[in-house]
Every structure is written in C-alpha cells, then in structure tokens.
C-alpha cells in the first residue's frame, strides 16, 4: 500500500503540492483527477523520485520513498508510464521493452514477462522489430505501458494514458488497464478524461491547485454534483 502524507512540493518558489494526503490500497485502481496544473503529474513524479519533495512522506509498504534514488524505487516495485508516452523513438519496440527491465538480471523471468506483455498487447509483438517512433499514438501508449510492466511492478503509475488518442483507442487502453489490474497490479491513474477514469476506479481523489478537495469511491464522485459540473462537463439541469 502506498501512503502519502502531508506532501509539499515546490518548483522554485511556486507551490505545486500544498500538503496532500492520499492512499493507494493494494490491488485497487485509484484515480487522481483535476484540471491542468492542479499538481497531478507532480504527485506521480514525486513518487518515482523524479521530483524532490519539500516535506511530507511517501510510504510504500511502510518504507519511506522520499529521498531514495529512482532505481531503488523502481526495484521496490513501482513503475510509471509517463505523460506523452515518451517511448524511445529510434529504438525498436523490443529494445524499448527490454529497457523497461533494465534493472532486472534474471533472463528467464524477463523472457516470461515479455510474453506476458505480448499477450496483453499482441500488436507490440507483430511490430517488435520496428522503430518505436513509427508506431501510431495508441500503439506508442501500449508500448509505454508495456515498458513499465517489464519491471514487474506491484504499483503502476499512469500519467494521462488517453491523452491525444481517438475515442476507440481510449476504450482499448481502459479495458487493458482493467485487465492489468485484475492480474494483480495496483494502479494509480491520472486522467483529464474524468468520466472514464471514475468509471474504472475503486477510489478517487480530486486535486485542485495543489490540494485534495474531494475523495470517495469512483461511483460516489461520478454522482457528485460538483464533480459533474467541474470535470464531467455536465451542467445542472
């Protein structure tokens, strides 16, 4: 279980997170919704160690993550598929996936997980020799997720996986998120597409200018009038 307490993060003098607290229980899908600049990405980037926190704590199964180097955090079982996919465009699909397993040494285990990723995303197998930059946006997103899974994470952080994708592809991505979760991976999902995210989530938090302003189950927030108005684009009738 991931437990964030009173986390403060600042860029220069600008406060990005003003003391947020949240929990990601094992085996669940938790989503963090909010407008641009609310601090969603900052939260994920702080968990992975890409961004340094000012104060607070991020505990992973009782172990403090703040201040740990990124490779230790990955080895502890946390992986991220970053915003904008960020696949390595001139490396092949297979090389991208292998990089996801960069810290692992057991070749047999890696080969097994490669098969697992290929079962989840058969398209990646068909294209494993292709340069990642030649894939479509949806395929690149699948590759980014597959690459993150190659470290065999217990917790997968997903930053805007639906960004810039066609509605049908978004459906695919979300059904795969559900599938990955059923196979035992805990998921912390950030989304602009609040409707989709809340439908799939067990637990949800709303982030507004660096503060958590609401939390509840996905269904609760989906039914909440304030959430409807602010994030689901539905006006009170």
């Amino acid at each position, binding site marked *: 279980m991931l437990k964030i307490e009173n986390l403060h993060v600042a860029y220069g003098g600008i406060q990005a997170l003003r003391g947020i607290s949240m929990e990601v229980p094992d085996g669940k899908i938790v989503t963090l919704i909010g407008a641009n600049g609310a601090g969603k990405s900052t939260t994920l980037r702080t968990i*992975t160690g*890409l961004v340094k926190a000012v104060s607070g704590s991020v505990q992973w199964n009782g172990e403090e993550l703040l201040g740990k180097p*990124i*490779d230790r955090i*990955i*080895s502890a079982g946390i*992986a*991220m598929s*970053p915003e904008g996919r*960020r696949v*390595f*465009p*001139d*490396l092949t699909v297979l*090389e991208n996936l*292998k*990089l*996801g397993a*960069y*810290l692992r040494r057991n070749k047999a285990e890696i080969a097994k997980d490669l098969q697992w990723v290929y079962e989840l995303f058969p398209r990646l197998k068909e294209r494993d020799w292709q340069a990642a930059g030649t894939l479509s946006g949806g395929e690149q997103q699948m590759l980014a997720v597959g*690459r993150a899974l190659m*470290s065999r994470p217990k917790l997968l952080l997903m930053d805007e996986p639906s960004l810039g994708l066609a509605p049908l592809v978004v459906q695919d991505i979300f059904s795969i998120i559900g599938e990955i979760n059923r196979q035992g991976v805990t998921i912390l999902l950030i989304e602009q597409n609040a409707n989709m995210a809340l439908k799939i989530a067990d637990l949800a938090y709303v982030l507004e200018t660096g503060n958590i302003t609401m939390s509840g189950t996905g269904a609760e927030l989906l039914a909440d009038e304030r959430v409807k108005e602010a994030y689901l684009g539905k006006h009170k009738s």
Partner: protein
Amino acid sequence: MVQILSTLLPGISVGGQYALIALGYTMVYGILRLINFAHGDIFTVAGFVMFYAVTAMPVQLAIPLTIAVTVLLGFTVERLAYKPLRSAPRMSVMISAIGVSYLLQNLMWYITGGQPQQYPVIPWISDSISVFGTETKRVTIITPILTIVLILALVTLIKKTRIGMAMRAASRDFETARLMGIKINSVISMTFVIGSFLAAVGSFLFFSNYSTVSPTVGTMPGLKAFVAAVFGGIGSIPGAVVGGFIIGICENIIRGLGYSTFSDAFTFALLIVVLFVKPTGLFGEKLEEKV
C-alpha cells in the same frame, strides 16, 4: 591503381586518426549536446604521458599506462567541470569546456616547459616498410585497420550491450531513461571513458607519424576531427568516421597536387560550406532540444 593507392594511403591513415578523435566529440555531443573543447587537449596529454612514461618503463607497459591515464583524465574532467553544471544553461557548460581546454594546455606548458619533445619510437608500428614501392611507416597501414576494428567494436557495444542500449536511450531522453532505472551519470562517464580511450589510441598513431609533441600540437588535429564530426553529422557515429576519412583523404590529395599551404584552409572552408548547405551534416538528423 598502385599509383592511386600509394597516394591515398597516407590520407586514409590520417583520416583514421581524425576519425578516432572525432568519435569522442560526436559521442559526447550525442549525449550531452556539448562540444567538448577539451577533447583535443586530452589527446595531447596522451602524447606527453607516453613521452614521459617510456623514460621510466618499457613501451609494452607505457602504452596501457597512457591509456589508463588518458581515460582517467577524461572521466575526471567530466566529473569536475561538466557534471556540476548539469542543470545549468548549455552555454555555461561550453564555456567550462573552453576553460578546461586552456587549463590543460597551460598545465602542459608549465610541466613540460613548452619545448617540443621527440615522441618515442614505438617498435614495430614505427618500422619502415615498403608498400607499392613507396617507403612508409607501418603505422600508415595499421591505422585504418585498427580504426575499423575499434569502430566495429564500438558499434557492437552500442547496438548489442545493456550499457549501449542505456547510452542510446539517454542520448534521446534523460528523464525517461532515469525512469527505466538508468543512472545517467554513469552513462555519461562511460561516454567520456570511451572517447578518451579512442583519443589515446589515436595519439599513439598520430604521434608515431608526426614525431613531436608540444602543448598545442593537439589543437589542429582536434579541430579537424571536430570538423569531421560536424561534416559527418555531429552525434552520428558513422558520420564521424566517414567525415574523418574524407577530410584526411582530401587534405592529402590537395597536398599531393602541390597546394600544401591550402590544405588546412580547405578543411575549414568545408566546415563553412557544410554549415551553410546541410547544417545537420552527412548522416546527422535533427535532434530536438533536450530538457
């Protein structure tokens, strides 16, 4: 045919030496987007280390020692002068590189007194042999062969190994590479280690041909190797190699035609033309700015 080969051979040889130095420029640029102005001076230091080492030990020991010292120097320069500036503007790192270049040159003046020194004769590679009826040193033949072998080894390292994959990933995107667990600083150090190693090998070949070492003797081959890297497309490994050979061969042809005075001018004119016509060079691709 024989006539042509015997004219081309010295050019191919010098070209191989440029290529070995150019690889150091292009690899560092690929990963840090930095022109390492100190690279030519590291090459010169390798010349002096060899000069002093042979006074104390046999050549067979002096060669590995020179390689080790050069590699350590490249590594240290990166750690002390570039690493602290990792998040500074690119211009600051470049100025730091220029500073290191002058620092090394002046240290060499200080230590050596500035006298050009006779480069030691490395047995076997400095022997005279006859190729196609022309007398030449064996190094002329060795250089292109050794260059090709080292390049193949380098390409294999980059394409096939774990660290090579990490280097390719980091040269594109530091942050995502870090998310894979890659230690960026180790990858950058590795790049400087490889570049300095190749410069050390280049120095054995170059100075065996050129015979004297002085504190500024590396400036010209350093600059030409830099031009070779830009000509081939900076950041590109095949580009640096092809660029090195083309410049070496062209310079020798120009000399052979009796225009020795213009051979340096040709190289730099080529740089200007390349920057006008195809700024990305022969094999270069447009690299996006890295954050």
